[in-house]
């Protein structure tokens, strides 16, 4: 039976009040951009914006699953750098070979994280920090600390450079399909609900006989796989494996997840809102670039980061306000 209620907007908002802020901020920023800049809504800007940000969207969504269980994955940036090199080496065999192998490589690191965290009971922060350093070193080792050019003769660069039916970049289409799949998984399957239950209370979940360990292994494998895919898009879009890229990506991903209203302690989260969070962070840069383009002011890349930080803070503050008002309402009801 088709379930229409789950994707009903009002029911979505009532279940995810914490994500209202990110949608409002996103709408405001888009409106601002459309009104102020001529080419903001143009096909070129939209497509290059989505192409570039597809990497961050997929990493953030992978991260959101980990955070929803109450964990954290600091390794995603280095893993993406590592898998971009793997993908570059595999590029002569075409995207259909390079992509799965790079994703598998990412999942290997995810599996390592899962092993540390579940079997050895190492806290996620430490375990994934170790993997982050390991993957970073590994990327430098297999690449000889240099960018690895991809094979331009194969179809590998299609992923990051060409568009489906000349409309949307391949990267965002692939990421979009996966994200919708993961959204479905979170909202509609018992696996998704177990993810949230573990974040809500791991003790209660164990006592209910839920498959706690298996589910935790899943989220780290997923996060690793998502980082692997981001590595493929990176190599494909820039035409080279980038062992030195990915620094700070994990923090951007965590920021996107938090802006999207997922609780850092776990138990509450939303896939679309995480995507919105990633888009919001990207849009701030996009708009600042346009602002520089107008020629009225000139903001350096460093100042752009400062502005992004301030903006992030404002959204989180807004989110906290919405939440506390929502709670008060709940108490009266």
């Amino acid at each position, binding site marked *: *039976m088709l*379930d229409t*209620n*789950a994707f009903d907007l009002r*029911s979505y908002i*009532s*279940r995810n009040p914490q994500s209202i802020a990110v949608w409002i901020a996103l709408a405001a920023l888009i409106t601002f951009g459309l009104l102020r800049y001529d080419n903001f809504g143009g096909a070129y800007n939209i497509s290059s914006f989505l192409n570039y940000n597809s990497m961050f969207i997929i990493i953030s969504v992978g991260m959101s699953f980990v955070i929803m269980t109450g964990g954290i994955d600091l390794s995603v940036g280095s893993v993406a750098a590592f898998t971009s090199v793997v993908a570059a080496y595999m590029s002569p065999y075409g995207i259909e070979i390079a992509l799965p192998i790079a994703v598998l490589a990412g999942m290997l690191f995810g599996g390592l994280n899962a092993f540390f965290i579940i079997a050895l009971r190492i806290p996620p922060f430490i375990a994934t920090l170790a993997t982050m350093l390991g993957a970073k070193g590994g990327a430098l080792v297999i690449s000889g600390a240099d960018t690895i050019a991809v094979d331009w003769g194969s179809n590998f660069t299609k992923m990051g450079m060409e568009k489906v039916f000349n409309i949307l970049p391949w990267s965002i289409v692939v990421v979009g399909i996966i994200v919708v799949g993961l959204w479905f998984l979170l909202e*509609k*399957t*018992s*696996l998704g*609900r*177990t993810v*949230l*239950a573990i974040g*809500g*209370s791991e*003790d*209660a*979940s*164990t*006592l*209910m*006989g*839920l*498959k706690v360990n298996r589910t935790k292994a899943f989220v780290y494998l997923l996060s690793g796989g998502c980082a692997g895919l981001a590595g493929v898009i990176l190599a494909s879009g820039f035409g080279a494996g980038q062992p030195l890229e990915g620094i700070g990506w994990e923090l951007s991903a965590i920021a996107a997840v938090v802006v999207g209203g997922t*609780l850092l302690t776990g*138990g*509450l989260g939303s896939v679309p809102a995480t995507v919105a969070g990633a888009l919001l962070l990207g849009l701030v840069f996009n708009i600042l670039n346009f602002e520089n383009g107008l020629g009225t002011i000139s903001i350096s890349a460093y100042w752009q980061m400062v502005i992004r930080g301030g903006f992030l803070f404002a959204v989180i503050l807004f989110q906290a306000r919405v939440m506390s008002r929502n709670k008060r309402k*709940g*108490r009266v*009801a």
Partner: protein
Amino acid sequence: MSAIQKAFNGVVALDGASLEIEKGEVHALIGQNGAGKSTLIKILTGVYRSDDGAVEFDGAESLISSPREAQAAGIATIYQELNLVPLRSVTENIVMGYEPKKLGVFIDWDEAHNRAREILKRFGIDIDVTARLGSFSTAIQQLVAIARAVSLDAKLVIMDEPTSSLDVSEVKVLFGVVRSLRDAGVSVLYVSHFLDELFEICDRVTTMRDGRTVDCRKMDGVTKLGLISGMLGRDSSEIAEAGMTEFSGGAAKHGEVLLHADNIATGPRLTKLDMTVHRGEIVGLGGLLGSGRTEAARALFGIDPLASGTVSLKGLDARLETPAAAIKAGIAFLTEDRKAEGIIPDMTVRENLTLALLPKLTRNGQIDRAREREIVQGFIEALGIKTAGMEQPIRELSGGNQQKVLLARWLAVEPELLILDEPTRGVDVGAKREIQAIIRDFVSKGFGVVLISSEFEELVEGADRIVVLNEGRSITELKNPGITEDILVHALAHTDGEAA
């Protein structure tokens, strides 16, 4: 302390509590959970302020308004959860904040170590004081906490459940230390659920009930039965009489054996449990706090591994090594700690209710939402769960309704044996009746229930049979109809070799 009053947000916690401790005596403070012991201690140690009444210490009206002032005045508290620093050395833990100094700045470690060694030697303990505190057992750590108190010239040492995590030989050492404190003129306020200990170590005992101190007596001439009846507010002569009457018990007819636990043990808190649950039967586990009630439930649900003994289900040997295995075998467990181990606060009523059922609700990896709603709606109606709707977050529900949702969570998986640990704690009277009716209805379908409750009334009225536990052992069994609270209390007080 006299006529102490204390209320929190209008709820009276203490209503005329008085306590008098003499110099150099070991004074026991007993009472059931919620009787007001902790509140009284917290007022004494400056954590709370009393609304009314007076505290006198060392002959003078005392105005202790913070734990620091209490410490300065000579009152030291040894909490159940030790407030020491396990990563620092034994010496540091003893002298911290009061380190002996050289030239007024540098810590004189030789002197500090000597001081620590000397104090511990007085207790008969010889350990490496430079080693990290955390490397020693809980018992030693507790003694170090006491040593710290002594080094600060404590005149009154408060011990809150000091023996709850110690084994028998460690308890002996602790008692030795307590006696040496007494001999040195230090007073000890000793709070414990283990009544047998009190006879061994205490001089006088104050009993609390419902926020009042009801009784203060010398330990000589007090019986265990007398203590229990004081705690519960019952007439000890009636209880004694109840124990005299020949109690044959009813002959309620029940079905075949569902579960049989044969001599199971999991550790020092559960050393020997024998019990049987038949189909259609509610078996109560009766005992005071610390008697092993919750440990029994944890053992049956596969949370704590069995050290010895066997459990059989429907006549077959059952290996219940994890909660998941127990659930698969048809056992469900409603935990005592609803907030931490029961509800998932941010999830909705619907999601909370179906969590344990998910495997059965999932088809092709997808949750069958229509069936889920149908089941949830069914339970909301059948159990009379008061909610704004199944999409309301469970944290917004009242305690009683949260508990009903958790009950429904387990009823939904259709278990054959339901273990209920304090199912009606923190639940209003109306909801309590309803929950009891739900339990009765459940067993009438041929299933079994193990009921744990610290409320004797609930056990006596609700259970078909009561297995009585004392200090981790099942000591006797009572059968309904005919059990009264007096009979149950008598059974509790009647331990090996002691005729109450």
